[in-house]
């Protein structure tokens, strides 16, 4: 069948080539090592973050007592007699995160139930990408929107609302986080097997009863994990609070006035106020360390919840 009789058989040719497969063997040996190096870089990144924060924080605590950091209720690093009490920053961070959650959790969950249980396939496929757009808008844009639109609107309703306040960035952050709550909760609800729904429908349950009494409890761990992740996201969010939240540490729980968050403090100080090597410079790492510990704890908690309470369908 083969026209060229001069040519040796393919089997013979392959046999011959096999003896001179240097390049292939070299690639076979080196490639996995290169990929392993890439994978190790991701571990080194974590080490880098932890070590960076740790060393600079230790330097900070050699100048400022850790007791003051944890217990003082004042945060005035730029005073001639500075105070370094983290509490006002924590208060600001958690207050704004709480405002965001008041918006994001109910709305996000309602969106998730609608998309997972009520919406037709077509509506779901239209709305989900639009929500992704909402999630994909850079946070600086949300910050701009909070400062130049939401704050003036709120000022018209709430007299005495300061230009920099906790309410406006909190609300806008909530809007930004809606898609995250919605998408993660919807994933959890979609994972509930159809047979469980059908069982309830067959007993004459309405769609609402199926959603709230069958699907919601079955997906609860995933839904709670989505809340925890969203809180972590809100704590770590930076630009909205930097732009619209202002630079004064919280004085009590007044959400109509400026409340600085941990992230906003870090950015404000790095904008030029803190010279390298000063106590203030090291303070941003101590605050960064606090921020890192809180977000890491939340993320681990979310992983724990979704693993520990994973439903076996």
């Amino acid at each position, binding site marked *: *069948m*083969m026209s060229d009789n001069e*040519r*040796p*058989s393919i*089997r013979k*040719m*392959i046999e011959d080539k096999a003896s001179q497969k240097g390049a292939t063997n070299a690639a076979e040996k080196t490639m996995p090592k290169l990929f392993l190096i890439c994978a190790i870089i991701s571990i080194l990144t974590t080490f880098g973050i932890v070590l960076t924060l740790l060393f600079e924080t230790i330097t900070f605590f050699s100048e400022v007592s850790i007791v003051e950091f944890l217990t003082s209720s004042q945060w005035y690093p730029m005073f001639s007699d500075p105070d370094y009490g983290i509490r006002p920053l924590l208060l600001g961070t958690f207050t704004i995160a709480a405002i965001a959650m008041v918006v994001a959790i109910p709305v996000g969950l309602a969106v998730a139930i609608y998309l997972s249980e009520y919406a037709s396939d077509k509506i779901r496929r239209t709305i989900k990408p639009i929500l992704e757009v909402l999630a994909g808008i850079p946070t600086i844009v949300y910050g701009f929107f909070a400062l130049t639109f939401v704050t003036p609107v709120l000022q018209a309703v709430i007299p005495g609302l300061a230009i920099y306040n906790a309410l406006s960035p909190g609300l806008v952050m909530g809007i930004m986080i809606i898609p995250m709550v919605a998408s993660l909760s919807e994933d959890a609800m979609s994972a509930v097997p159809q047979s469980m729904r059908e069982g309830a429908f067959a007993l004459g349950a309405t769609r609402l009863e199926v959603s709230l009494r069958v699907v919601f409890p079955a997906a609860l761990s995933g839904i709670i994990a989505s809340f925890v992740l969203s809180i972590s996201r809100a704590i770590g969010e930076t630009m909205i609070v930097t732009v619209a939240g202002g630079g004064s540490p919280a004085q009590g729980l007044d959400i109509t006035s400026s409340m600085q968050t941990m992230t906003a403090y870090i950015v404000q100080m790095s904008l030029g106020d803190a010279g390298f090597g000063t106590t203030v410079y090291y303070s941003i790492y101590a605050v960064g360390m606090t921020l890192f510990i809180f977000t890491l704890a939340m993320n681990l908690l979310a992983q724990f919840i979704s693993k520990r309470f994973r439903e076996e369908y």
Partner: protein
Amino acid sequence: MLASQDKNTEYEENTTTETKKTGDSVYKVDQLNLWYGEDQALKNIELDIPEREVTAIIGPSGCGKSTFIKTLNRLTEMIPSVKTSGGIYYRSQDIFDKKYKVEQLRTKVGMVFQNPNPFPKSIYENIVYGPKIHGIKDKKVLDEIVESSLKGAALWEEVKDDLKRNAFGLSGGQQQRLCIARCLAIEPDVLLMDEPTSALDPISTLKIEELVQELKKNYSIIIVTHNMQQAGRISDNTAFFLNGEVVEYDRTDKIFSSPDDKRTEDYISGRFG
């Protein structure tokens, strides 16, 4: 294929382990055991598989026949929990020998899978995949390989005008013949077929069966099948597997007419499985 077969003689003269005399065995399986984690899937398998014949492996689902055939080219190693003991000798080469490269074995032993699995490339690229990875780059040679392999798999007439077409555009039966052609492209010694027709319609199945009859002139074929009639139609030898053991292994006509073991008879007559 004929021309290339003549050339094979020359090649085989150079190697001491291979002889062309029929009646020799391509595989000797010696006391083979295999575990998936804690579960033993193959127990004490002992088989001699003759060359240039069709050997069918039959048995009910879960009897280990698929595992067995994938052990013959060490594809079971892709599952991390697999452990084996005992030996498999391919033309008296211990295939579990640490110094023996598994790629070398798989170059000689082609495999056709249960579901047609062409690469998401053109027909042409599917065929030349094997030759290319083994270092054959000459365009003229590759063109010849494509033609002879497709002819060998009885697919040439159907696709010769459109070799650049994506393989996914072919029918299931054509895809399976393409997968056979893809194996033939590197001129293997043995063809392993793991239920090659289970996903196909009766007409495509018939074509593959005819093809197997044709291919056994040049290749040693081991075929796993769920379909006893198929084993009866196309094989020379049949091994009946049950619960990971070989219950009976003999000439096919013997197995189907007067099996020694009661269980074989029960299975053949459709009493279980």
